[in-house]
């Protein structure tokens, strides 16, 4: 049992950048739940944290866009965004190249993942780390699923990738934690920022909680775009995490739309 924690959280830049504009009661409850995630990860004894993210053109572009990529760096850095804007100062983040190598090798048995020894983090990873490893002392293995540059990674491939990640975690002696991070419905970085389809989110989270593979893989991108915005494409990270949890159910310990954060803010852990 080398996967010792699996969960998901939101990563929208507004979570830190526009903190003072949110309703303080809801915001602080959200932050308290991110703190619960931090403690859960710490208590799990995790020696490394895999962050399955959906980056926003910090490293990958349409000149050579991988469907999947796993970091194999010694060290990473972030945020790429203006630190005064994101309100997260620049940090070096430790990697674990040797562990990455073993995980990538195992994943590659079934999924053609790219790998990268260089990786700059954007808000998609820096916002979660700001709360989950605020001292930047836990080795991170960044993972990306293409949720941005169409053609996007198909949902069923995200599932198979999650299964491969689990197999890889189980194959190493280290204790590994895994956090998927993405939005559910949202329209980030458009004039509609702050629009949230709460009903769609709650419906998705019901399927996610019971780890209903068929129901999650039945989403279709055209419909998701109409109902949940282009931010909804990031359900790939939730789906991969559910697959890595190998059928375990999830406890969604926080969900609330926070429009100025541009997303229904979510914290969940799987009952591994």
């Amino acid at each position, binding site marked *: 049992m080398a996967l010792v924690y699996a969960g998901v959280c939101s990563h929208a*830049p507004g979570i830190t950048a526009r903190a003072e504009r949110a309703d*303080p009661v809801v915001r602080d409850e959200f932050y308290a739940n991110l703190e619960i995630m931090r403690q859960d990860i710490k208590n799990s004894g995790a020696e490394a944290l895999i962050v399955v993210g959906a980056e926003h*053109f910090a490293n990958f*572009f349409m000149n050579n866009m991988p469907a999947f990529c796993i970091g194999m760096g010694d060290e990473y850095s972030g945020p790429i965004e203006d630190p005064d804007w994101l309100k997260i100062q620049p940090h070096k983040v430790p990697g674990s190249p040797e562990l990455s190598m073993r995980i990538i090798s195992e994943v590659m048995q079934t999924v053609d993942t790219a790998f990268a020894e260089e990786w700059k983090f954007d808000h998609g990873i820096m916002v979660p780390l700001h709360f989950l490893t605020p001292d930047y002392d836990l080795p991170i293995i960044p993972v990306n699923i293409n949720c*941005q540059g169409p053609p996007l990674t198909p949902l069923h491939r995200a599932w198979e990738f999650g299964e491969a990640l689990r197999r890889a975690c189980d194959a190493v002696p280290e204790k590994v934690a895994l956090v998927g991070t993405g939005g559910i419905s949202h329209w980030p970085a458009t004039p509609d920022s702050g629009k949230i389809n709460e009903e769609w989110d709650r419906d998705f989270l019901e399927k996610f909680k019971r780890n209903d593979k068929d129901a999650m893989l039945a989403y279709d991108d055209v419909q998701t775009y109409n109902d949940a915005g*282009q931010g909804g494409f990031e359900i790939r990270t939730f789906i991969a995490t559910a697959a890595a949890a190998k059928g375990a159910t999830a406890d969604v310990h926080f969900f609330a739309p*926070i429009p100025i954060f541009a997303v229904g803010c979510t914290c969940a852990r799987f009952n591994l």
Partner: protein
Amino acid sequence: MSLYYLQKVLYELNRDAGVQQQYLDDVESLLGKYTLTEEERTALKKPDIGLLYVLGVNGQILMHFAAFHKIEWDDYLQSMRDGVTEHGAVRAGVYAMTGGGDNFTKDTEAKQEVD
């Protein structure tokens, strides 16, 4: 059709302090390396966030560029709305405006101190 290169300039700028410095020091020679139309070149230099948005620059790429220019959040959102008013609907990509130009946050925000 040079939207690819228009976005590529911004991708490289957003992630690299060296390219950002070049943009500030000698934007002409930076932009000279990419296949761009005159309209795109002008929009990048100004910067014309509304036009870049309508031309189809991915929202995430544009958001980081607006942050680099220290454009306030509300002004950045309004620039995109103004861009649509002035130039019409977003021409490419998946970041189109679908909310009719509404503000989706104002009713739920914490009360701000007015000084």
